[in-house]
């Protein structure tokens, strides 16, 4: 038995000559919040749909819980909760009726109290009798998460769960995902084209572009291996430039204003820079690391 929850190997899906996914491979381990990152049209949704048997792949292998999806579809799906793109409920039914419908075919025995518990978890207690037609996008998204949790699955797959939400809705969903990981020990696969979302939530990730997986691994390792651009706010720019060029002549330093400069450097040098400036009597007001996932992602995609 493999310890991987998901193994995707050389997945491809063609529609005639159009290659929606050409070569995607990645692994997800138990307990991961796994970021599935790529620009729009990269093939994220197609890959997720193949993982859920909504789409038959042209080639490649998809194994979940150590079993081949093609031959153990029901077993695998009974252990997964998912939202693909957006949760589309029956608008003419209440939140509770919708959950009853999806719960009934989830492979587990779902009681009304369980439905109530899930609605409370996602903050929809008191709205169970309301028809979904009157729900906002954010409420539908939260109801979608309640639906994914009904049968207590081990793996939760969320495809672009914050798309179309207002800032508060995004924060709510992000917090819910972190609760799933921290309080309920779920493994979460989260697809998104919003880089900050992955950076804030995920511990591991794969980046895909034009139907191909470019890189996968731990988010912190992938980011820390990169050279950073650090913006420093200080009170004495000339003295700071002098200190920096004396101590690290090889560094690329750029003054961006009367009290700020940009330095290209690696992650571990930041404390030394701060100490040197302070020792020289330069007051440092802010140090902001600019090279984050966004830069890393753009660099990869451009290459």
């Amino acid at each position: 038995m493999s310890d991987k929850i998901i193994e995707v190997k050389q997945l491809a899906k063609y529609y005639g000559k159009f290659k929606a996914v050409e070569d995607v491979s990645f692994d997800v381990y138990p307990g991961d919040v796994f970021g599935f990152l790529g620009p729009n049209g990269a093939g994220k949704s197609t890959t997720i749909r193949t993982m859920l048997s909504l789409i038959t792949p042209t080639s490649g292998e998809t194994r979940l819980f150590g079993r081949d999806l093609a031959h153990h579809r029901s077993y695998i799906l009974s252990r997964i909760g998912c939202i693909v793109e957006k949760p589309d409920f029956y608008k003419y039914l209440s939140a509770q009726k919708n959950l009853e419908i999806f719960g009934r075919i989830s492979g587990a025995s779902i009681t009304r109290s369980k439905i109530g518990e899930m609605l409370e978890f996602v903050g929809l207690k008191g709205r169970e009798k309301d028809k979904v037609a009157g729900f906002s996008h954010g409420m539908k998204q939260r109801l979608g998460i309640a639906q994914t949790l009904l049968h207590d699955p081990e793996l939760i797959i969320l495809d672009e769960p914050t798309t179309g939400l207002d800032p508060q809705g995004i924060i709510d969903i992000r917090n819910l995902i972190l609760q799933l990981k921290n309080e309920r020990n779920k493994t979460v696969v989260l697809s998104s084209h919003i880089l900050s979302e992955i950076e804030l939530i995920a511990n591991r990730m794969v980046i895909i572009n034009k139907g191909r997986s470019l890189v996968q691994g731990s988010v912190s390792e992938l980011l820390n291996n990169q050279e950073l651009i650090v913006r420093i706010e200080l009170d004495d720019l000339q003295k700071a430039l002098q200190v920096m060029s004396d101590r690290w002549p090889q560094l690329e330093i750029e003054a961006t204003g009367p009290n700020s400069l940009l330095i290209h450097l690696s992650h571990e040098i930041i404390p030394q820079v701060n100490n040197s400036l302070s020792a020289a009597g330069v007051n440092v007001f802010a140090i902001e690391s600019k090279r984050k996932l966004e830069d890393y992602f753009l660099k990869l995609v451009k290459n």
Partner: protein
Amino acid sequence: MFWKSTYNEFIKIAAKPRSYIGLAAISALVSVILFAMKVDGKTYISFITSSFEQTLTFEGDILNGDLIAFIILQMLIIHVPLLVALVTGDLVSGEAAMGSLRMLATKPISRSSLLMSKFLAGGAYTLVILLWLGFMALGVGHILFGSGDLMVLNSDGLVILQNADLAWRFLGGFGVAYLALLTIATLSITLSCFSDNSIGPIVTTMAIILFFTIIGTLDVPVFDNIRPFLFTSHMIAWRSFFEEPFPIETIQQSVIILVVHIVVLIGVALFKFNKKDILS
């Protein structure tokens, strides 16, 4: 899981407003016909019987609930397919358009079970529509007009059926009519598997019925060989239950043709639905 999914389908059909359009339309149409017959039925009947009055004498009340029911069935059974397709044509494609099919298909139920539960629910809805038509035509017709012998005018002439001989004929007639409507329901669900919008399968179903009906009624020899195999040729097979002598072979042939259509259509739908990439 299949029965749970079927129960889900019943709930969805029962909660959908469009499911009640058919029942409302039947109620309105039958009420209008019953009202017209109550007010001016005798004129209508005398118009039909006038050509026989020189050779036959009619005793008793010809205008009774059984005759009214027969007339209503004859008028409406051609239009009921539209009311059935309005709901059944939406069962798969409507969910694809709405996006809920995507959510259903990620549940641990086989696609075959999912589709068969829709067929079963569609069949049950068709039965409800037909039973409602039967209740409105036969039940309300009997309450308003009483019962009596049934006078049926067909291509061979006039057939008078005794009142005691009518119950099984209506039962059989409704049974074959159900089979015909079930074929329409199956056709629309099958077409529904090929589409991601809810209107397409409904319109296509009606177009196919229209097309086959025209071919079936065109008295051109080139269509003679295919005409007996068109399901539309057997849509009015229920009328054979009101003929004398009783045409058992004609009825058997119609039943076989309709059943074969249903089985083949279900097979096509299962094949398509199992292979379908759900992209909506």
